[in-house]
């Protein structure tokens, strides 16, 4: 089956002359949660805007579920729901009216039961008669999600969905995203919170200065690029690293009380080797502690390269 979203050689130069996307190629798999990570101004919103029809690409092509977003825009857009980064709502509309408006706009016959179900899922049911301007930021965000889901899209874009959102809503949102994925919805999200990508995503793409610099399974990314570190609390402090251990990537810390071993996630067999070598050399340990780099460390490293 073809990819649900295919982006080919996409370039975008704004009228101002600024090039926001350079030769972007990206395939999104059906049913996955894809996290697009990148610093501010990297082009995440631009990419999403083009796929959703809000902006135009300068060259290249995009298809959604096999439909070209330009020549077959009706079919393509019917498949897509978008929760934009900015909270833009019609202040004087009620929650109920605005969500039903969205469904109609996307060409679907009214379905009160379905809208009721979404509003209940998003804890908005009690607020359905409230005007948008009476709602808190978090509630507005929920309404934006309800609007995006109102036409039963197969693909959902969430552009920085949890920026400025409280912990409770963030949890609810992740729960909902998981639920949607179980129902077969493909989800593409951008985020600054790397822990989110770490927790939720199946695959991760990193964008920097308009270029996709990496797309990888989350697990593979973490084990490939992740560093592990083992900290050994020594019984007797060492003044220098003994020559018998010179082949290992070791650091003496805290006046020789601690020996820290840094290694790639893939070479964990090294740990056993190091421990037995230390044993042979008569270096005893009181305690040990291991840690691994988070996606955040990986991300920061990637983005700062070059």
């Amino acid at each position: 089956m073809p990819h649900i979203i295919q982006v080919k050689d996409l370039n975008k130069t704004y009228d101002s002359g600024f090039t926001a996307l350079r030769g972007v190629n990206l395939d999104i798999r059906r049913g996955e949660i894809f996290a697009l990570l990148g610093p501010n101004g990297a082009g995440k919103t631009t990419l999403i805007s083009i796929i959703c029809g809000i902006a135009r690409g300068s060259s290249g092509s995009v298809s959604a579920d096999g439909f070209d977003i330009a020549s077959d825009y009706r079919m393509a857009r019917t498949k897509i729901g978008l929760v934009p980064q900015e909270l833009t709502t019609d202040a004087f509309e009620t929650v109920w009216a605005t969500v039903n408006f969205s469904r109609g706009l996307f060409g679907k016959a009214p379905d009160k039961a379905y809208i009721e179900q979404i509003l209940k899922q998003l804890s908005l049911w009690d607020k359905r008669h409230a005007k948008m301007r009476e709602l808190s930021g978090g509630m507005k965000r929920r309404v934006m999600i309800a609007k995006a889901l109102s036409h039963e899209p197969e693909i959902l874009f969430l552009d920085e969905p949890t920026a400025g959102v409280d912990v409770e809503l963030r949890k609810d949102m992740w729960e909902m995203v998981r639920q949607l994925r179980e129902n077969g919805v493909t989800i593409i999200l951008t985020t600054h919170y790397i822990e989110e990508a770490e927790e939720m995503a199946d695959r991760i793409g990193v964008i920097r200065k308009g270029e996709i610099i990496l797309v990888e399974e989350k697990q593979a990314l973490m084990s490939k690029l992740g560093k592990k570190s083992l900290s050994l609390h020594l019984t007797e402090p060492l003044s220098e690293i003994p020559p018998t251990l010179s082949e290992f990537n070791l650091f003496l810390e805290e006046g020789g009380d601690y020996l820290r071993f840094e290694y790639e996630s893939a070479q964990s067999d090294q740990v056993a080797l190091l421990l037995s070598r230390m044993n042979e050399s008569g270096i005893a340990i009181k305690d040990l502690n291991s840690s691994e780099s988070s996606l955040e460390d990986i991300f920061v490293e990637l983005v700062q390269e070059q």
Partner: protein
Amino acid sequence: MNIYGIMAIYKFEMARTFRTLMQSIASPVLSTSLYFIVFGTAIGSRMGEIDGVSYAAFIIPGLVMLSLLSESISNASFGIFFPKFSGTIYEVLSAPVSPFEIVAGYVGAAATKSVMLGLLILLTAKLFVDYTIVHPFWMLAFLVMTAVTFSLFGFIIGIWADDFQKLQVIPLMVITPLTFLGGAFYSINMLPEPWQTISLFNPVVYLVSGFRWAFYGVADVNVVLSLGMTTLFMVTCLVIISWIFRTGYRIRS
């Protein structure tokens, strides 16, 4: 054809109208009443008949046109300007609606509101002057055509404007003068030359004249010419709008 999409935009726009009912309906009715009191009753009583029609009755079509033009433009321009300004336009742009459907929704709603208003003004006028309409069908046809045409024009202004000032400037600086000089309160035949000839370059003259012909069977210019000019203006607006959507001008970066 995304009928639900058109309906969604149309209903949204009509709901906006009814939320601001006072502003939308009451103020044009009030200002028209004032015109009648001042021009129709106070001044009109001292004026002779024009083309066999009493002055108070003579100004009715012009007054309706005055409101129709400014209301059509302001409704339609605000209707599309505001979502652009607030950002909510993202949803329309990302929806499976064609340019035609977008225009049908926004312009349809703006024109509906203007026609309702025009009819309301006619009813209000009945309170002040007794008049009859000779060609009711053509009266309605001119009313609808003018409402649609100027709503299309308003839609263009709303797309073009990138701040509130630009939104106001064309209605204020162009439309209002053209309407006042377009024979709403007088027959252009009453003007000395060269003003009479210059007036013929004012498109509003054709609208008012055609509309007045539908009422009283008398016109400043041939009614076919009126119809032709209105159609020409409508087609021009449609061409501009289709260009806007083809190029994404000020709506899709």
